[in-house]
């Protein structure tokens, strides 16, 4: 199994076998060092926003168009004892992604290797993906003249080059565990729960959420206590398609609205810019 502790040379040969990129993120191992947060920005060349000191330590407070992944810090007190938990936010790369299904122009695609990626040339700025995502992941570059949708790419470029995603590569404790197979990571997750009774809640977040995702989480606490939304198990595009399939005329309206929205956004941005000047 390809693991973070193995060298990148052990990454699977693309030609020989189909890769199904997957992360098992074990929050019990996370030390909150935020190496992943920085490595992600570094690899993607993402800029920063001016921030203020954050008493929770989470900073930036939420994912944004320049922050594809961050660590959220949760301090709690129970019976006089304090605890401090760290959880990574980022794209779950759904097996059947809602963002992909609602995109009218196929700007978002689910690649054969697993990552859900964004093709900026196709995007018309309707931002349906942002609304559709059950995990609240894609972000829009409101501040830019030609805004794009931004989110974690699973380091698709690195994967194709046989390299580990940058967050997994930087993680010192193996919290972000990469595998070339969702099944393998799922088996690993089940093994850890079985081998360490009492250590984890008996829930692999991402096994069933949204019909299953490529990124799965293990935790000592219910995941909603670590800032992760309660997401139903149903495959979301199934829901979407039922809805859209029922009223085909809506599609045209959606497209028109999308284009309209894009034009208005562009115009607003231009006006904002002129206003600044």
């Amino acid at each position, binding site marked *: 199994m390809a693991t973070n502790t193995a060298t990148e040379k052990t990454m699977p040969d693309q030609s020989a076998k189909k890769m199904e990129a997957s992360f098992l993120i074990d929050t019990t191992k996370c*030390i909150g*060092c935020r190496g992943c947060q920085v490595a992600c920005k570094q690899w993607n060349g993402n800029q920063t926003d001016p921030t203020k000191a954050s008493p929770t330590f989470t900073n930036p407070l939420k994912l944004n168009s320049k922050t594809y992944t961050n660590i959220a810090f949760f301090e709690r007190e129970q019976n006089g004892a304090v*605890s401090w938990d760290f959880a990574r936010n980022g794209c779950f790369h759904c097996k059947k992604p809602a963002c992909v299904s609602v995109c009218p122009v196929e700007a978002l695609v689910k690649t054969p290797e697993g990552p859900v990626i964004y093709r900026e040339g196709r995007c018309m700025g309707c931002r349906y993906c942002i609304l559709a995502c059950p995990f609240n992941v894609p972000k829009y570059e409101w501040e830019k003249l030609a805004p794009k949708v931004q989110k974690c790419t699973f380091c698709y470029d690195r994967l194709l080059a046989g390299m580990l995603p940058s967050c997994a590569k930087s993680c010192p*404790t193996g919290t972000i565990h990469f595998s070339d197979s969702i099944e393998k990571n799922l088996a690993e997750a089940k093994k850890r729960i079985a081998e360490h009774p009492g250590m984890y809640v008996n829930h692999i977040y991402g096994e069933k959420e949204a019909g299953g995702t490529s990124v799965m989480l293990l935790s000592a606490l219910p995941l909603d206590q670590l800032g992760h939304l309660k997401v139903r198990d149903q495959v979301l595009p199934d829901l979407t398609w039922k809805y859209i399939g029922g009223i085909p005329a809506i599609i045209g309206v959606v497209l028109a609205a999308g284009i309209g929205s894009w034009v208005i956004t562009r115009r607003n941005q231009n006006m904002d810019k002129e206003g600044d000047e």
Partner: protein
Amino acid sequence: MTNHWIDLKNADVVLVMGGNPAENHPISMKWIMKAREKGGKLIVVDPRFTRTAAKADLYAPLRSGTDIAFLGGMIKYILDKNLYFKEYVANYTNAAYLVNPDFRMPGQLNGVFSGYDGKARKYDKKTWSFQMDDKGLPKKDMTLKDPNCVFQLLRKHYSRYTLDMVSDITGTPKEKLVEVYKLFGSTGKANRVGTECYAMGWTQHTVGTQNIRAMSIIQLLLGNIGMAGGGINALRGESNVQGSTDHGLLFHILPGYVPVPSAALPDLKAYNEKFTPKTKDPKSVNWWGNRPKYITSYLKAIYGTSATKDNDFGYAWLPKIDEGMNASWLMLFDQMFKGKFEGFFAWGQNPACSGANANKTRKALAKLKWMVNVNLFENETGSFWKGPGINPKDIQTEVFMLPCASSVEKEGSITNSGRWAQWRYAAIPPIGQSKPDTEIIHELYKRVKKLYQTKGGKFPAPITNLTWNYKSKGREIDTHLIAREINGYYLEDIFDAKDATKQLGKKGELCTNFVTLQADGRTSSGNWIYGGSYTHKEGKIINMMARRGKADPTGLGLFPEWSFSWPVNRRIIYNRAAVDQQGRPWDPKRAIIKWNPDKLDPKTKKTAPGWEGDVPDGPAPPMADEKAGKYPFIMRADGMGSIFGPGLADGPFPEHYEALECPIQENLLSKTKINPAIKLFHDGKTGAPEDIYYSCDTRYPYVATTYRMTEHWQTGIMTRNIPWLLEMVPQQYVEISKELAAEKKIVNGERLKVSSARGELTAVAFVTGRFKPFKIGGSTVHQVGMPWCFGWFTPKDGGESANLLTSTIGDANTMIPETKAFMVNVEKV
């Protein structure tokens, strides 16, 4: 580190006290977490619940500056509950030695040991000695029952450290003390091992050295020194601070921990006489008995052919300090403050923020005629003349900035905390006009030498006689040639003194290791402990530090073919203490070394008994061998681990004293409040106002400490210039408890003024449950903490250095400043 980073995984119990590896050494957590995965337990003792504490199985809070009370209580617990490793303690430590009957302890003398001179604030250590027999060896009671033996004195000394007393001093709840003592004390068995990780949280106190001594005593009592998964491990705060210490960075040591000579030692003979320890015990290796070989080889390395037997190998050219002189950081800046220096190279450092009592440090810089700031970035030190409250017109100091290359822009070795010297290559050429440090030094050398040659000077010989053979293939200065000089050369053919047919070294070749070094000038070595790091093997030159072999024959993570570990590629030092007197491992599952009487010589195929595993602390057979057996602690003159340590300035056993600035009127344990052997810069009445301190003063009621965190490094010169890091932690903050916040009506996120007797700064309030008030001697004591990585220069509203608040006081032995415990006030702005 006695052990090394990967070895942390072999521990059953990891005690983190005086350090914060998850935040400051994140990679180490990989190994600590591996220990936990195998059922190991992590204990964290810290005033604040840190990111390391977040991963701990057991967390215990303690008030800053009370570690000795905490550890003293552990020693008492281990002795009372018979948890110590008897065979190890009796045979491998000085526990059985009989101490001078005139020796008295703090319990008998109001908090001081015998021999104290209050006026001089110094001890006469005459009574801190052992009773000797007629052969000149220490008298022993192997039953450990004699009331004057070290073991019984230890028991007596720490009998005062009861749970009630310790809890009253430290503020740690009694049940937490017992939990920690019990869990760590469980490693006194042969098949259980505990390790300790510390950093500046232990060193930066007026009792810093004794904090570590207290833990060393515990590790000796539990038989954890020398063991895989054991030891006492300093987590060094800079990637190469181990290397720089090895190579003589500190004022009192030359490379290889060879003492700097003083003016009272006029020649090499006097020097060797003073610094070469002796023993009359044939079973003691007494490795420092080799000192003359190392100093002579060092002189040959730096003065080459100019160093001859007739001129004492150039000993006279070595810089000398005055007898008893202390030239440590605090003293240097005190002297600079007093106008005693003209010039200063601030090389790869930022004293305007990193030095304790930064206001005094900044004032000291203004007394200089010139300063050279060698750094990657402009910083608060180079720009001190335009800092807050300073009018540039008033400053006469001429400041030069020399941009230098970063670690990825130059080639050379880095020695990590585990003593592994690892070779690195330049990834990219230096940007702009920046140069690697070696090139800057090379340019300086050329110019200074030329000035001496053309214009003369008071004492040109130390410079004009220096060897400087670093030129190679078009390169002015080649790091490889420096590394080879450090390793050392055979300057003549060397033959075994006992067997003249056996050649040990060939003229012109690199030394195999330090064992073949000579005291007569026939060998050179720039740093004896690096002997074998760059060597000749079967006619080929090999840079051992560049090795990247991944073999792990013992399965203990020694990786003996990866880089080079000093000394002689030994991965765990004192490893002879990991086996019994017959050479059998205490714990066969963690067999770091073992004696194999049936070992076969691979060449001759004949039986040649020997050690297997790690490179042992000397090839001698096990201690039980009547003819040739040796004691395990080879660097000690008597071969024993020192439970009684008469070498330190402030006592042979650690004793609790309060920090210079503390929240309580009296030391609850004795009438002696602060460490009686520290140098006071201000006596409370007289002294420079900059050196003032206030203890138990209502104006400064809160205990404070400083620390680092993952996102920033040291004073933040590199990290404050990296937006990705600054985005996460952009401003100075102060962490305070919910209870203190409620008392002062402080709201999370608001700006606060934090002040001490010496300075003030503003910081954002982080109100947290990770700090809790302490109950000290019946009253409530609050503690706050803040990082020291900020400074006024950048970013614009980042805030100031926490060292504006810290005091001018140092440890009694090392003079490291006490920045981990001082008193402040916190107010709403």
